[in-house]
């Protein structure tokens, strides 16, 4: 365990979200209305309704195949709904909105370049290539010593931390994470959770997919529980964990198998 990860410099993303939000209209509330996504003759997202506010960390939970990853892609605008609407502060997902968000994939997608170049690539895209900021980001995810390694030679946990640093490099207003810590080493899980908490504390909206109940408890302000492509329950974390109102969420929390 590396202790320094718990006392990271606090300047990396400070104030960026509020500054950007002052320039452009807010992305919140996020309103999803009767959302449908069909593929291969199957309805995978089924008349899903959801409203999220700008505050805090929303945990997206649900059994495998519930449609969590699909919903995240739809929200980010990577795929288009078959029907229904998604509105970020009144606007449909488009390129501009996409650029104000960052997505961390379940399986990190890293460029075939060094750790440093992976960060610089994104910094350059945003017109702010800056060695100092890159070093700060790398320090924050504990990868300074590995800066010159080819990114794809890193361990799974290191790769995901790099993907997270790269996501933060874009100074997103919304951070979307799709089970970023599934099958990672505990040290990386802790580090990623800590960074996510810090990021949320700076006013960045975090939407975090997990099916790890412990992780959900550690991070959630509110929980959206998905089942078969629609929202079975959306509740503040305390209420959700102490007294879930839906039977599927109750079964899930009790460790029972959900069909």
């Amino acid at each position, binding site marked *: 365990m590396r202790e320094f990860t718990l006392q990271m410099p606090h300047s990396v993303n400070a104030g960026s979200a509020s500054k950007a939000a002052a320039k452009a209209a807010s992305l919140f509330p996020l309103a999803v209305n009767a959302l449908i996504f069909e593929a291969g003759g199957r309805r995978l997202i089924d008349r899903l309704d959801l409203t999220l506010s700008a505050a805090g960390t929303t945990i997206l939970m649900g059994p495998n195949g519930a449609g969590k990853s699909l919903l995240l892609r739809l929200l980010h605008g990577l795929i288009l709904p078959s029907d229904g609407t998604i509105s970020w502060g009144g606007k449909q997902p488009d390129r501009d909105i996409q650029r104000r968000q960052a997505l961390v994939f379940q399986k990190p997608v890293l*460029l075939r370049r060094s750790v440093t170049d992976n960060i610089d690539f994104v910094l350059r895209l945003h017109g702010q290539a800056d060695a100092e900021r890159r070093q700060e980001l790398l320090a924050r995810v504990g990868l300074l010593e590995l800066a010159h390694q080819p990114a794809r030679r890193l361990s799974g946990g290191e790769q995901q931390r790099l993907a997270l640093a790269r996501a933060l490099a874009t100074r997103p207003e919304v951070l979307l994470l799709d089970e970023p810590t599934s099958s990672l080493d505990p040290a990386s899980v802790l580090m990623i959770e800590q960074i996510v908490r810090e990021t949320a504390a700076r006013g960045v909206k975090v939407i975090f997919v997990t099916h790890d109940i412990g992780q959900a408890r550690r991070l959630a302000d509110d929980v959206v529980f998905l089942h078969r492509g629609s929202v079975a329950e959306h509740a503040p974390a305390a209420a959700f964990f102490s007294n879930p109102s839906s039977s599927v969420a109750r079964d899930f929390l009790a460790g029972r198998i959900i069909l």
Partner: protein
Amino acid sequence: MYILHSCGNLRNKRCNLQDFAEAFRLAFGLVLSGDRDLFEIIVLSLQVSLSALMISCVIGFTLGTLVAVTRFPGRGLAVVTFNTLMGLPPVVVGLLVYLLLSRAGPLGTLGLLYTPTAMIIAQAILITPIVAALTRQIIEDLFSEYDELFQSLGLSVWQAMGALLWDARYSLITVALAGFGRAIAEVGAVMIVGGNIDHLTRVMTTAIALETSKGDLALALALGIVLLAISMTVNALALSMRATAARQAYA
């Protein structure tokens, strides 16, 4: 093959093992002594094929990548066309370029026929489809992995193409080597549009063909040895490129 063929044609020379041994001895002698005619031919061959390769890489990398990352009507046709043109017979390319550049042809006024430029054009036409088709394959595989990331980051098509070309660099060098190997070993096209003129358009392959038919096996063999050495070098480079890529986990 040429050697055996020419043996059959040589009436006043007895074709036996001693002649072969002698030819090999002379050939190595020519290579090792740095024979001027030999080196002139080698240098011109390299100039022509490397120039053709450069042109083919600029066009082929761009076209291949463009087709890999975009979706447009007729895209399937473009892919099939690249793949079909990969197997273009060199003599057919030679013939087409000849018709294009001959005095009566559309580009006849340029007076390019029987010049190294004509040979560069012919070889470029021959290997551009190879470079484009292989590039498309490589970039498409890479793009399927990067696509969502690039979308998420809001990259333009040009930015995506640049990033893909850079990340595929080791594989693309291998593609270039394959194109070069085909160009330097090709004889039909350069023979037709270059004319195998001594000190002007004579390259290794056309010289080998000529010297063999004349019965000067030593020069033909010397050139054959050089050609073989170049081919081996190209393959060794391709192999080491793959090893480097694997070692760096860039592949």
